[in-house]
């Protein structure tokens, strides 16, 4: 089951990466395209929680760092997306794992995640002076990316959440089955 989950998540990230680099470039707005990898990580973390989110964030980030035509110092997107996956997962854990997030809260989460992700990436860039960009330009890019990510949310997040929930329901069904198998045992112990 967990192998299937990993494969599905991996496929989602690959498709997102290809779309982002080869397809979305036709819709680029001043070079900014929707960060589909970030959206996939947000969707997965919303359904699965912080640990899955952080692990998938790391995988998606390394893919973004290494896949052509990336030329920045590798590991910067990995760091940014680990933080995003973890924070979004924590948000979901605090709201209760079973509650389905409303459309509005998903959009807000994406906006916050996009801001945090792009900012962490830009901040590491400034620390390493990887490309020395001005603060004003950096902020403009971060805000543009945030807006574009929010615009892309209604097209991407339902798909990601749907796919994640499909594999999730299988898993939780298995969990429920195991719990029902366990439940009678303590009861029997007390009875004796």
């Amino acid at each position, binding site marked *: 089951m967990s192998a299937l989950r990993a494969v599905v998540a991996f496929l989602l990230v*690959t498709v997102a990466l290809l779309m982002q680099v080869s397809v979305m470039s036709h819709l680029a707005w001043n*070079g900014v395209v929707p*960060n589909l990898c970030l959206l996939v990580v947000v969707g997965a973390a919303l359904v699965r929680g912080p640990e899955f989110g952080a692990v998938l964030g790391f995988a998606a980030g390394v893919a973004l760092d290494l896949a052509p*035509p990336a030329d920045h110092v590798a590991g910067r997107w990995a760091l940014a997306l680990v933080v995003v996956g973890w924070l979004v997962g924590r948000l979901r854990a605090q709201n209760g794992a079973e509650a389905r997030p409303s459309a509005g809260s998903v959009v807000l989460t994406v906006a916050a995640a996009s801001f945090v992700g792009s900012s962490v990436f830009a901040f*590491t860039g400034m620390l390493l002076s990887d490309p020395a960009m001005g603060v004003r330009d950096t902020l403009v890019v971060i805000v543009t990316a945030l807006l574009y990510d929010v615009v892309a949310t209604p097209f991407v997040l339902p798909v990601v959440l749907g796919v994640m929930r499909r594999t999730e329901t299988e898993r939780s069904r298995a969990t429920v089955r195991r719990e029902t198998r366990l439940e009678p045992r303590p009861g029997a112990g007390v009875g004796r």
Partner: protein
Amino acid sequence: MSSPRPGHQRATRPSRGREKRWRGLERLEGGRPSRALLVALLLASVSLITLDQQTDDGPVEAGRTAVGETLGPLQAGAAGLVRPFAAVPSWLRTQDSLRHEVSTLEAENARLRSEQATSGLDRNRLAELDGLTRAAEDGGFTLVPARVIGMGPMQSFSRTVTIDAGSRAGITPDMTVLDNDGLVGRVLRTTRTTATVLLVMDPESVVGGRLGDSMEIGFLRGRGSIDDSGELTLDLVDGTVAPGEGDTVVTWGSDGGAPYVPGVPIGTVSQVWSSPRETAKFAVIEPFVDFSSLDLVGVAVPSGTRSDRGVLEADGSIR
């Protein structure tokens, strides 16, 4: 009464313990998250950054090549699927915009015709001189055609593209990439089927340029500007020279033609300002190439390079 209670408790204790153990497993599945995992992933990211920052040709570069080899053909496929649809907006145009374009083209035609009439002599002399230099330069260079199949997002703050020709087509790092308008950039790294190109508008890019009118040399840097114009700054070596607006800038070329071959047009001077503190003059260059719609490009390879596709020789023939 007191004795059964402890006994009762003793009997329940092991089962509670078992329950706890199961809860512990549940926790791993998605209950309370473990900090250790987060810390491990953060450390992994940081060590990846350090590894890439410290080593030039280490495991990270191998990883880039491996990922590039696998994703390159997929990128080419995805770009090929989308290309017909990307052309759709250019079919839908208003009559006004077409009429406007016709009138601009007519005006340009007239201007060019008059220029041609006066510059025949100059052209002939230039052609002779060109022929001489070209012969001295061992036959010029050969172009390998390629298409852009991927564009790096601006969120990564660098301007790079992937093209669908790699080491099999005879491309190696540090080769000049141009299109029919002018200089595009240089090759950073290659896989078998793809190559990553650093555009001249990237803030990390530096190109040696020569002003067409005064033959003065300088360095062109990407401004890292975030709009699609992709403006460059020209930093002249001789601070006393004032570049005129509208001057053309071409590459002055590097030793052995790598990374830049000489004589490729880059752009025109659109703005000039001087900085009294640094006693230097700067010019803003508007490139000839439209970076937002890059598609067909050529990579300048040495003459006689073996390639997996037809190449354009310096004399215009296709091999």
